[in-house]
Every structure is written in structure tokens, then in C-alpha cells.
């Protein structure tokens, strides 16, 4: 199978580029991790959807363009190169939607996907619990069977943007007597404004208030909110996790755009920067290019029907992009010297502080979507075949 860019791909690229050039806001939107930024980003998602650029890879009936995997990558490249805003709908479109395409019902797709694509309903991921992070299968929040549905109780935490989001999807223990922790879990969707839900915002390291913990007290959700079979939640969640670590969450466009911006920054003052920094700029560029090519090669294999597709290999991506992101941003801050430290709301911050803001955010990369320690275990055991050790 040959994956050259076809004339149609190039046309698609040109169309996306032209649209973005005409629509990307001249001044960056406020951070989507704040109430004000959240509202502004919702509006941006709405404009994207209006011209069908919100979810290009989805089928047309759900607001997409039926774009191929390769075209999706092309779109992402153009999106980030144009400096377009981060996606406030990302948990929905990149984690929940693929899960619904794979495991959801027709009714669920019809009901959930349209409003998601238009930014009308923003989704939060409710997996982690205070006692269950890396050892996610130890989670305790419960789903108890009731007439026509389930009652959810317990506590979820570290839920990105849940302070402002509308709905959440998460894992609940529906069979407390299951013999193994991975069994008896059910994957459910629920509204964040339902009776019995309390949302408590948590400030993040970057000072943004969008993180939240969720307290659930016998929150009723109807059966229609169960994704897949009750009790099969772990298997379904793991297919979501593969997507989060792999292509969908961090498409290479983000890093190639940042690497080009970094190289441009270095060119402005190469002498002042010194050779050691030059080496780091080069390494960041090489890393972004490697990630891009790795992704294209990977996508080619998927398109060629290689069932090996993602799976444990998404852990390679996760460790690589998260460390690359930090290296890119740390190098930029070093190049900017005293200006690098200026926060995004400081008047004199270069490029609206996007490097400083991006830096702080990059620091979370090795933690979320499964910590890098856990990913290295997966790589060692599943890709290299090393024996399981004590966890």
C-alpha cells in the first residue's frame, strides 16, 4: 500500500490552509483552562463546525468530512502551523468519540456526536480517583443497579476542564464481588449538573482553575448512558487509553509547528544563544521530525490494514511526545532568557507568553494519559517481552 499524498490530499490541504488563514483569530484566545477562555473556545469550536472543520475524520452524517487518516494528519499540521486555538472539546472528540464509534450504539452516536462536534456539549474524562491513579483498576466509585438505570456514587478527581464542562464519561465498579479488579467495571456517561453531582474546581500548577474533583452521591443515569456491555468497562477504557497516548491526542502537527517556531526564535539570535543551545534547538527539530515521520509510517501501516496498528506501540508515542514537548519548551525559555519567564498575562511577554504557558503545560505530559513510568513498563513487557515484575 502506497501512502503518497494524492492530488485530493493536496487539495484538501490547500482548502484547510485557506480556511484557517481566513478564520484563525489574530489575537490568541484566552487560555481554555479559564472560564473566559472556555467560553471563547466554545465559540471557536462552533465556527469550526459550521464549516465542517471541527471533526474532519468523522463521517459526514456526524458533521465530519470523512477524511482519511492521512488527511486528518494533514489537517492537524495545517491547524497548528496556522496557530489555531487548542481544542476545548478534545476529551470528547479524541477520547469519547472514538470509543462511541467502536463500542457505542447508533442511538448514542446520534445523540452525542453532533453537539460534541459543535462545542455545545463539552466532555470531561472522569477516570482518576484520589486512591486510583496509575493503578486505575483499583477504582472504587460505584454504579449500583436501579430501575431503568444506575446510581453512581463516589469521588473522581483531576478531571481536566470539569469545572466548566457539561458532561463526563468514566469508569465505575458495578460488580463489587468480581474476583479480579479489572472485572465488574462499567463505562458510563453522566451530566455534570445532575442532582447529586458536586464539582469542586482545583487550581493547577499553571494557576488555571479548570481541573476539578467530582463528588457523586447516588446520581441517577439511565441505561442508555452505558457504553458497551455492563461489566466490560475495562476493555473499552483501554481502547480509549490507546487513543489518548497514541495519535489522536498529540498529533505531530503540534510539535512540528513548535519546532519551526523554536528554530525561528534561534535564528533571531544565534550568536547570543551559543552552540550548546543551538544543539538543543537542532535536537528538538530532529525530535519533532522523527515524531512526524514515525506517525506517518504508523498511519501508513494502519491504512495498509496492518492489524498491529496501535496497541502497546502507543506507549512509545506517549513517552516520546511528552519528553519532546518539554525539551522544545525548555529550550525556548532558555533562548528567551529573562523574557522566557513572563507569564501569558504579563504585558511584555513574548508571543503572548505562549512559550511559558506551553512550558508549564508540557510538564504535565509525563503524568497524564498514564505516567511515563507506567508506559515504560508497558513497552518493556509488551513490546520487548520482559517478565512482569512487582507493581
Amino acid at each position, binding site marked *: 500500500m502506497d501512502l503518497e499524498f494524492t492530488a485530493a490530499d493536496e487539495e484538501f490541504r490547500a482548502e484547510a490552509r485557506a480556511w484557517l488563514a481566513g478564520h484563525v483569530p489574530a489575537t490568541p484566545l484566552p487560555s481554555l483552562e479559564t472560564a473566559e477562555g472556555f467560553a471563547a473556545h466554545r465559540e471557536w469550536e462552533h465556527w469550526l463546525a459550521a464549516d465542517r472543520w471541527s471533526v474532519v475524520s468523522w463521517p459526514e452524517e456526524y458533521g465530519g468530512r470523512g477524511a482519511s487518516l492521512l488527511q486528518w494528519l494533514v489537517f492537524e499540521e495545517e491547524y497548528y502551523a496556522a496557530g489555531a486555538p487548542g481544542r476545548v472539546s478534545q476529551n470528547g472528540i479524541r477520547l469519547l468519540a472514538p470509543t462511541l464509534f467502536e463500542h457505542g450504539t447508533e442511538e448514542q452516536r446520534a445523540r452525542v456526536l453532533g453537539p460534541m462536534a459543535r462545542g455545545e456539549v463539552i466532555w470531561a474524562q472522569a477516570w482518576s480517583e484520589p486512591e486510583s491513579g496509575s493503578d486505575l483498576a483499583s477504582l472504587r466509585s460505584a454504579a449500583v443497579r436501579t430501575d431503568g438505570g444506575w446510581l453512581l456514587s463516589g469521588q473522581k478527581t483531576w478531571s481536566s476542564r470539569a469545572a466548566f464542562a457539561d458532561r463526563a464519561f468514566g469508569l465505575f465498579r458495578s460488580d463489587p464481588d468480581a474476583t479480579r479488579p479489572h472485572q465488574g467495571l462499567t463505562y458510563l456517561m453522566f451530566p455534570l449538573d445532575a442532582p447529586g453531582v458536586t464539582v469542586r474546581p482545583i487550581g493547577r500548577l499553571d494557576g488555571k482553575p479548570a481541573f476539578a474533583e467530582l463528588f457523586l452521591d447516588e446520581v441517577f443515569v439511565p441505561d442508555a448512558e452505558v457504553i458497551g456491555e455492563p461489566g466490560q468497562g475495562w476493555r473499552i477504557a483501554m481502547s480509549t487509553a490507546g487513543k489518548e497516548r497514541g495519535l489522536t491526542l498529540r498529533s505531530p502537527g503540534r510539535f512540528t509547528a513548535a519546532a519551526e517556531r523554536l528554530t525561528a526564535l534561534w535564528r533571531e539570535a544565534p550568536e547570543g544563544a551559543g552552540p550548546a543551545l543551538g544543539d538543543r534547538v537542532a535536537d528538538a*527539530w*530532529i525530535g519533532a521530525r522523527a515524531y512526524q515521520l514515525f506517525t506517518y509510517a504508523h498511519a501508513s501501516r494502519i491504512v495498509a490494514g496492518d492489524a498491529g496498528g496501535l496497541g502497546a506501540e502507543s506507549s512509545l508515542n506517549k513517552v516520546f511526545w511528552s519528553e519532546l514537548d518539554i525539551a522544545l519548551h525548555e529550550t525556548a525559555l532558555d533562548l528567551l532568557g529573562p523574557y522566557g519567564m513572563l507569564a501569558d498575562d504579563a504585558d511584555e511577554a513574548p508571543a503572548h507568553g505562549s512559550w511559558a504557558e506551553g512550558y508549564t503545560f508540557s510538564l504535565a505530559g509525563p503524568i497524564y494519559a498514564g505516567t511515563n513510568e507506567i508506559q515504560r513498563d508497558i513497552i518493556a513487557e509488551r513490546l520487548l517481552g520482559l517478565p512482569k515484575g512487582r507493581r
Partner: protein
Amino acid sequence: MRFLLTDEQRDFARALDGMLGASGTPAVVRAWAAGEHKPGRALWARLAEAGVFGLAVPERHGGAGLLPVELALSFTELGRHAVPGPLVETVAAAAFLERLGSDSLAGEWLPRIAAGEAVLSLCAGAGPYALDADAADAVLVVRGDTVCRTDTHGPVQTTLDPARRVARPLGGTVVARGPAVTAAAAHAIEVARLATAAQSLGLGRALLAATVSYVKQRTQFRVPIGSFQAVKHRLADTLIALEFAQPLVHAAALAVAAGAPSAGREVAAAKVAAGEAGHGAARTALQLHGALGYTEELDLSLWIRKARPLRDAWGSPADCRARVLTG
């Protein structure tokens, strides 16, 4: 850009891997390090038969044309099996002679290179030494816009990799002069860098594979050392570095094949990433084999000692990073 290999390319690499695996390369490396080139030349002839050298020689001179993707694949296999000799230098010399535009020089050397009868060393750009000058049928020395051919050299110097023996070329006669020399040398350096990067990649793959099987079998504290997280994570990082260097090498080969203006940068990027990944794999292999890894008798030492010189050959990481920044 074509990201996947064709079946023919895959089969070619597999066949080469099989042939080299059955060739007892460790003994060949040890002989080469001792200055006995006979087993090495015999292996060289078999490589030529498999078509390796023809990949850098155009069809009208008895080769298959410059095929950078296939060349990169074969050098990955040469690296995987730690084959000694001026392999890179010979294919780079072929690329140089092909580009030079001198029919007589091309006619004299290229058919012999393709047939595995001529072993050349090339000295262009990086450092005063020619690799394996004592084993080569001739050494080409590029200085500025002249190229000399010589058969004499100073005393052989051993390097960190005993199978990598270098010497200063001496004297020689000018065989070509002018801007064509400079241009051909730049092209040859690109091919040399690509082949060296591919070699580092193969070397690293072999080091990782050997280390993974060792840590599964070596027991300490009553469990295989491969079950310890510190060991696992180091191997995971080694795999990550190799996996992400691989597509860079492939893309660099495609860029050279297409004669793309970006080729110099792509090749330099591949050279940095593959050189560092191969070197990192050697460090990991040494560390995880413990003192055993530090012994000359262990065949793995032949691989370990190649990693650092390959990382630095044909453009140090610093040179290549600078090339990446030039754009």
C-alpha cells in the same frame, strides 16, 4: 513520500540478514582487527554477490543504480552483524566517482566496486585519516577541489574499535580537479552519512536484542534481572530511541533518492538520531551485562566498541546538528 517498504525491499533485507547471520561475522571482525583481511574480503565478495555494492553503482557500470533506500536497508543489516571494513567508504567513493563526470575514472572503478573486486577508502572532509587504508585497493583523498589517488599510507593507527583501523594517506597523484570535485564530494558525504546512520541503527537493534535476551535469562535476587523496573525502563528508552531514529533514516534515504534540496538536512538529522540511538544502545548493553559486558571475549564487545566511532564518523553529532540548523 512512500513510508512503507515494498515486499522486494523487505525480502532483500531479510535475505541479507540470513546470509550474514550464517557467516560467523565475529570471527571475521576479530581477524580484521588483527590485520588479517582474507576472511573479510571473502565476506565482501559474498556481499557483492548479494548486490550490496551495486546499489551505489549505476546500471551502465554494472550496478543497480544509486538506490538509497536499499542502500540504507543493507547498511542496517551490515551494522546488525557488525561487518568490518571500509563499507561506507567504498559506496561513498562509488557515489563520488559516479558524480564526478569522468568516464575514465568511473569506467575504471565502478564495475569493479559493483563486482566486489575493488575495496576503496575515501578521505573527504572529516579528519586526516582514511579507514582501512591498508586493506583498500586505493585511497581517494579529496582536498578542496582536487582529488588524489594513492596506494601509500602512514603507519596504521588502531582506534577504540580495534576493527576500525585508520592511517594517513601519503603522496598520491591528482586525478581530477575543479568544481565537479567539490560537488561530487558533497554528494558522497551525504551518501556516507546515510550509510553510517543506517549502520548505527542496525548495530543498535542487535545490541538491544542481545541485551533483552540476556536480561531474561540472567538471575539475581532469585528473579530474572529483566523483571526489575530500572532495567526495563532503560531498555524501553533504548527501544524508543531506535524506533524514532528509524523513520528518519528512511526519510533521509528517500530524500537522497529524490535529489531533494532538503536531503542534506534530512540526512544530518538521521545521522544524529541513529548515531545517538546506536551509541545509547551500546551503553545500555554494557551496563545491563555487568562485568560480562566489559569483557573482550564476549562477542557483544565487537558491537559495543563500534558504536561510538560510528556515531562520530562522517560528521560528528555537533557537525550534523549544525547542518540541521542551516535548514
